[in-house]
């Protein structure tokens, strides 16, 4: 799949395969590799299918958030036949058949999280994916965990970046907007106030990584 400016590849994965197979696939981008290791054990990756991970996002919330930030879609079987659904807020997909991950040339990504320990499930994690064209942001997606019961792709704040250069000042503004946009619930690992503050800090960091990053295929 191509457009005029950018090479775009759609990586489609049968929902039956285990997460370990996704990790070992040569097409698996570093962002997804990162979110499939560290917190998730080898055993869990082996016994958890893509379908299960999408249906129960608490198993691999950072991976689901990364898919959201990548703009991934799933094919689900509905009454009217197969439908393609964008992964976004509170997505619970009972019977997805295929997962489709767009891999875009020049895509930049960043991921930041806070946790009690390095391999603990993050209290809050932010994943950002930015597509650039001619020095301007063509697409920006930010997804977070820990600010909603399930991973969430933010609708409003990242849109402020589109059409402009990726700059620190704009990133800070987006981070502030993210703090307002999220609706976290506190628990024993982090209060509502803390999670809200971290949503801003980590979104900023994820986007700053994008700022510093040359596009993967640039």
């Amino acid at each position, binding site marked *: 799949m191509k457009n005029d400016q950018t090479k775009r590849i759609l990586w489609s994965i049968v929902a039956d395969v285990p997460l*370990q197979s996704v990790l070992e696939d040569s097409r698996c981008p570093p962002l997804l590799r990162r979110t499939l*290791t560290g917190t998730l054990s080898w*055993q869990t990756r082996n016994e958890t299918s893509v379908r299960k991970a999408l249906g129960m996002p608490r198993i691999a919330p950072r991976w689901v958030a990364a898919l959201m930030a990548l703009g991934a879609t799933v094919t689900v079987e509905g009454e009217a036949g197969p439908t393609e659904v964008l992964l976004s807020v509170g997505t619970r997909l009972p019977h997805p058949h295929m997962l489709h991950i767009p891999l875009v040339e020049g895509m930049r990504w960043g991921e930041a999280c*806070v946790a*009690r*320990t390095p391999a603990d499930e993050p*209290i809050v994690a932010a994943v950002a994916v930015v597509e650039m064209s001619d020095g301007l942001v063509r697409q920006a997606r930010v997804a977070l965990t820990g600010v909603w019961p399930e991973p969430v792709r933010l609708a409003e704040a990242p849109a402020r970046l589109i059409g402009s250069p990726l700059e620190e000042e704009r990133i800070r503004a987006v981070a502030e907007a993210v703090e307002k946009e999220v609706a976290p619930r506190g628990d024993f690992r982090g209060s509502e106030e*803390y999670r809200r503050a971290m949503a801003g800090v980590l979104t900023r960091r994820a986007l700053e990584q994008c700022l510093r990053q040359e596009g993967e295929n640039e």
Partner: protein
Amino acid sequence: MSRGEIQTITLTINGAEKTLTVHPSETLLDALRRASYTGVKHGCKTGDCGACTVLLDGQPVHSCMIRATEAEGHEVTTIEALAAGGQLHLIQQAFIETGAIQCGYCTPAKILVTKALLDRNPDPTEREIREALSGNLCRCTGYVKTVQAVQRAAAMLRGEEVEPFTPVEATLGPGRSPTDVVERYYHMAEDEAPLPPLLLSPPEMEPLRVVGKGVPKVDGVKLAAGRPVFTDDIKLEGMLYGALLTSPHAHARIKRIDASRARALPGVHVVLTYKDIPRVKYASGGQSYPQPPPYDQVVLDNKMRHEGDRVAVVAAETPELARRALRLIEVEYEVLPHVLDPQEAMQDGAPVIHDEPDTESIYDAQHNIVHHIEAEGGDREVQWAKADYVFEREYRTSRQQHAHIEPHVCITYWDEDDRLVVRSSTQVPFHIRRMLAPLIGLPEKRIRVIKPRIGGGFGNKQELVLEDLCALLTIATGRPVRMEYTRRQEFTSSRSRHPQIMRYKVGVTKDMEVVATELYLIGDTGAYGTHGLTVQMVGGQKGLTLYNAPYSRFVCDVVYTNKPPAGAFRGYGATQCFFGIETIMSEIADEMGWDVVEFKRKNWIKIGEELLLSKALGEGREGFEQVIRSSGLEECVQVGLEAMDWYNKRGNEAWRQKDATTRRGIGMAVMLHGSGVAGLDMASATIKMNDDGSFNLLVGATDLGTGSDTILAQMAAEVLGVPVEDIIVYSSDTDFTPFDKGAYASSTTYISGGAVRKAALDVADQIKEHAALMLGLESAEGLVLRDRKIIIPDGRELTLAQVALSSLHQQNQHQIIASASHMSYESPPPFGAQFVEVAVDTETGQVTVERVLMVVDAGRVVNPITASGQVEGGLAQAVGFAHCEEMVYDANGHLVNPRLGPYHIYKANEMPRIEVIFVQTEEPTGPFGAKSVAEIPMDGIAPAMADAIHDATGVWIREVPFTPERVWRALRAA
């Protein structure tokens, strides 16, 4: 399970096609264990711990997380496949040689993961090894030796020659500064991680033949092979399954309980409630006779005092039936007001948790104060008058769970002589027998307690928690009964570390001298007293002894709350109180502008000094006067400072600023502990000589994964002049081994070791006397036991086998055998220094522990491999205590994180670099100069981390764990 639901599946297990009959919902774990693949363990059944790992088509999976039916047509590999034909796999061999096995419960799973890793990657990096093992929780090892085992196994499988796995040894003394020694060690170990332990000895210390060597654990082979050695690895004919119904409320009274529907369920044999059990008061803590008061528990009660308290117990034909029966028990509760905060519990009008009339010895039941302790030493007015500065601070610690991977599990049955056998994962078999008898109405002589191998305990199995219920079910049914805590019940119904509130007041002179120290301690014992008195007394004694101020005062309230009871946990009060004293000492140094090391050095207790409060604060009673006879603390600190490059990092702004938002810090703490309970702990040992010159060593000492069977065998072997393999150890069986207090209070090496040494010396004397008889010598003087022989000064020799055969069959026929007991009125402290480097994210508050070093004086180290494993594992638990582990309750007293995942213990792929250095000393009262090592690693990490966080950020955090939000708020408030 109805017949119609049963399915038959065919799969390949360990290379052989098998047909299993399973229920559709049955897990692969349960199906495999039912089919006698008992090398497959379990610790949570929620996919958190990894102990149930098997290979499914060569890939590691949690067998508890997949249904047996999913394995149909696939190939399953369990640990039993690896040692086929009796020959250990090289991976198993490497695990034994490196000391990677402690309790051994999680070992089969780790070995299988290692196999899967090395099958695909024969030369993995350390990072890849740690990532592969990240799904296998281990509470014993700290993962250091596990990584070394995998590296060694990989080399062996690649066909490379490997050197013997031994610690690095060096002499520390005149002409050899710590700098030289440590630099040489670190140079040698450059780019190698993790490092092998370093063993530093004073020049006058003579090496011994067996003691001091890193010999493999005597139980290593059976643990590596996954043989059925744990409590739950047997299945008796006609065995029933017990299950426990627990309280959903923090505080409630049972208004009505009706078990008739449960009793009517086919397959249910008995249901017991408080109505069915005599009301016998007891305390569940496994301690020496008489157990400290109060006796505030009964087996089953009509009042619930915490979520997880006992309501009823069931025995049924299957575990599923037992669980169904629990759901059929109708209970109507009168929910009572509850109190969770110990300070609120002491207020007028607080809910009274123990309002029953038959509990005696509660200090102030109306205010929930179970004990009030006061002790002091020195002249208060004189010493406080000397203080130029007074510092007061409050510190708080959290409720930590032991999280041993093997749950509490017990099997009871009648033997052929109508005696009740209790097979239990306990640290205190002899105490259990004594405590159990009145609760079940049997005389002690009709009870036998057997402790098989234990999958970790750390103090939590120093309690009677299941044995009484299980025994009563066997008595009621006449059938063998198995009971096991679920992981949730481990959190809600077993024990934990006492949360403490500590208010320290320290007086210092302008010359850096600590002249007075006072500690007011509030200990939260939860719903029952159990170890409440003794833990707080030890905490006060240790917390006020390290600096041994001329005036010290300890005041303590031990308080009931509506939370699960706290109990014994490695460190036993000292861990908490050292957080307080070491942090306030660091705070004082910082505020006064003093070098923290110099300040502590000037004041820490030294050789020849008497421990001021040792008499006033025993364990639950008056103690005994103690004098420090050996201490390597100065050397520990010197070596640690050099190894960490302390003075080039501490306060160095360039080193501190790691990046724009991350600051590094380095901190330290010193500590001491004890070696057994002075004047109370007693152990005994029996040694018997066999025809071939080998020996049976019978000890009541309880090896819960620490390696005590091994080090006791080393001590016997040292005296008897034989290798360890000639010592056959049998331990922890109340019928066949002599008494031992059990595994707690860092007592086994010192107390049980003392008994073994005495018994061995007696046997050695008997051997020499018989040899003298055989050779017609007038005296046995000058005879030496060495290399399985008796060496006569004139050059002649006899083998031990010759002496054994002669004594048993020929001359002056008798069994060469001796028993000995040992106790001590001294409890010599091991000393240590711990150093921590952290990185603090100043925007998120996340603290990352980057490096941990412990330099420890444990006297003469009997086995550097097992001892360093103890230290590494203790450090991992200590880092968890300081950093992340906390049982959290909601406003209703419900635990919100009763699973290993959300509770979170450290995994292999997030451990900091951990190093251990031993500075050996000769403790004159210890066997071969040994002191203890088991608990002291717990004691200094929290204050060292607090010190390091302060070094990084300028902020003192006075409450553990140092969670991101706690640190974030402190940084914002600064």
